[in-house]
């Protein structure tokens, strides 16, 4: 428990550091977003409006420490300013549009890819040299080695266009309004299937290989020999004695992948026209939307930190050696 608290303290420190960087970096760039926006409107904006924009973006012209204080206060109120690309919508509202979809798409695919890949890795290592082990890993690595956008487009072309069994774009059917109705949820799942499958196909091979190799190491351990000598059932040895130990090094990688979930999968979202964070980020960069970019980077940073903390918690649960430290 003390260990977790210490880790939590560390992450809070890291969060503060990243918030501060997020404040400093845009201010090192020449000009300010309000002037950039003013220029884009080619004189159609009143000077008063420019001042209001500056105020909104936090570029008040005051001393840096005052700006910094204002920035932190705004942040804790959950106020990230106003988006330029989606003016006058608030950044938080814009983020909220994409965040849920991204969390759903990337989150579910990372979890499925990790769980499936680890399970396949465990089985491949257990039957090392068998038919399963000889065919599946090369096949999945082959799939993973395709350029991802090509794989995604092939899926889209095959299942969405030629066979016409799955929808081509968006997160749910245009004819439905978001609700918790069965038809809406079914539509969301239907739209999720293709992009999620493309991510799983591309990444499951990597998870499988790393699980397979750590599993092979664990299978040579004395406690596994001992478990065999104890006359336990193969399933029990495989999961309780071997897989639980082999999983430990892979949990770190899982945490990293989970942390980048909120960054969205740029290519997936573009190929499948999925309304997530990655799509927003492209919009933000195209229109020099600093507040939105800042907001997106902030959510990514926070997600990475949160995922790391989650891994620490998971580790304490999985590996008793980290407890009581």
């Amino acid at each position, binding site marked *: 428990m003390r260990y977790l608290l210490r880790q939590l303290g560390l992450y809070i420190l890291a969060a503060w550091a990243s918030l501060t960087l997020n404040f400093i970096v845009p201010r090192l760039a020449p000009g300010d977003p309000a002037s950039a926006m003013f220029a884009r409107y080619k004189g159609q904006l009143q000077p008063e409006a420019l001042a209001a924009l500056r105020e909104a973006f936090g570029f008040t012209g005051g001393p840096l420490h005052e700006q910094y204080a204002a920035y932190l206060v705004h942040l804790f109120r959950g106020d990230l300013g106003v988006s330029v690309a989606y003016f006058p919508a608030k950044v938080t509202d814009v983020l909220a549009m994409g965040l849920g979809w991204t969390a759903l798409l990337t989150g579910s695919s990372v979890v499925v890819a990790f769980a499936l890949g680890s399970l396949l890795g465990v089985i491949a290592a257990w039957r090392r040299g068998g038919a399963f082990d000889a065919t599946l890993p090369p096949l999945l690595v082959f799939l993973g080695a395709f350029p991802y956008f090509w794989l995604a487009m092939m899926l889209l072309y095959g299942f969405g266009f030629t066979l016409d069994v799955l929808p081509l774009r968006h997160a749910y059917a245009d004819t439905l309004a978001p609700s918790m109705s069965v038809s809406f949820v079914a539509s969301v799942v239907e739209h999720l299937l293709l992009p999620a499958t493309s991510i799983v196909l591309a990444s499951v091979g990597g998870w499988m290989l790393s699980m397979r190799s750590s599993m092979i190491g664990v299978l040579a351990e004395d406690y596994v020999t001992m478990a065999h000598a104890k*006359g336990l059932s193969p399933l*029990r040895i495989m999961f309780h004695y071997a897989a639980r130990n082999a999983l430990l090094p892979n949990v770190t990688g899982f945490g990293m992948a989970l942390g980048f979930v909120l960054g969205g999968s740029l290519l997936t979202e573009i190929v499948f026209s999925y309304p997530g964070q990655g799509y927003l980020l492209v919009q933000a960069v195209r229109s020099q939307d600093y507040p939105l970019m800042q907001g997106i980077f902030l959510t990514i940073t926070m997600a990475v930190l949160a995922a790391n903390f989650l891994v620490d918690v998971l580790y304490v649960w999985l*590996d008793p050696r980290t407890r009581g430290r």
Partner: protein
Amino acid sequence: MADVPLLAVEDLVVEYMTPSGPVRAVDAVSFVLARGEVLGLVGESGSGKSTVAQALARILGPPAMITAGRVLFEGSDVLAMHEDDLRRFRWRKMSFVLQSAMNALCPVLTIGEQIIDVLVTHERTSARAARERAAHLLELVGIDPARLTSHPHELSGGMRQRVGIALALALDPPLIVMDEPTTALDVVVQHEVLSKIAELKEKLGLSVLFITHDMSIVSQFATRIGVLYAGRLVEMAPTRELFRAPRHPYTKGLLGSFVSLHGPRRRLAGIPGSPPDLRRLPAGCAFRARCAEATARCATEAPVLRGIGEDHSTACHLVSP
């Protein structure tokens, strides 16, 4: 059934399948272990001691393969058993105390879970009864039953090895195989574990196959000793007899290379050279190159194990019956 020995190993051959061909780690080893007996198996590292031990319950993993021989336990051949029968046989009839106290216990499970799963698997006892039995087993080896909820890393090396012994006793098996049970421990803890084994042996009348490279340890326990060299048994005799009158030059070398606290002072002698490469065993006697008394016959003809006295056998051309 009274004359059927507890364990009879006949011409056991174990080979390691390597890319450059099979390597014989155990070559035609035969021995008998009677009920209540403690049989010591000694030899240098690489002599095949642990391979013999693990072959008995078929827990050798690839690339090792048992390619010939029989392992008769109470008359039935372990090597011919089907997977299910084999699982029932393991631990119930033959349990193990493995070499490394550090690695023989699974790091992510508690001590209790590792004792209880064996009880539940083999005896189908209730979880509660299994927990009571596990607590009793820990008491037997002098560990506080509150330790059932501890993980292996929370225990000292000596405690872990005693947990290993408690685990081996869990199903009250007729035979316990102890493979270097004290090797990874320091001398003081070694003594503590050994006296616990000696005490339990007296109390429970265990039959033990005791595997070690340490002559001084085996002399305290074993009723008979077998000496392995390069995968073959080179000498077998009752402990007293072996220490009093070793016949094989290798046994003589082994006995000359440890310090005895008792008896007259003598010069410590090692065995020159090192064990042969099992991939390229020379023709004739495997010990030839290190033997001071080797003759021309030793280079051409491999000696076989034969009786040379009451319960004493050796594989050496130099020894006349």
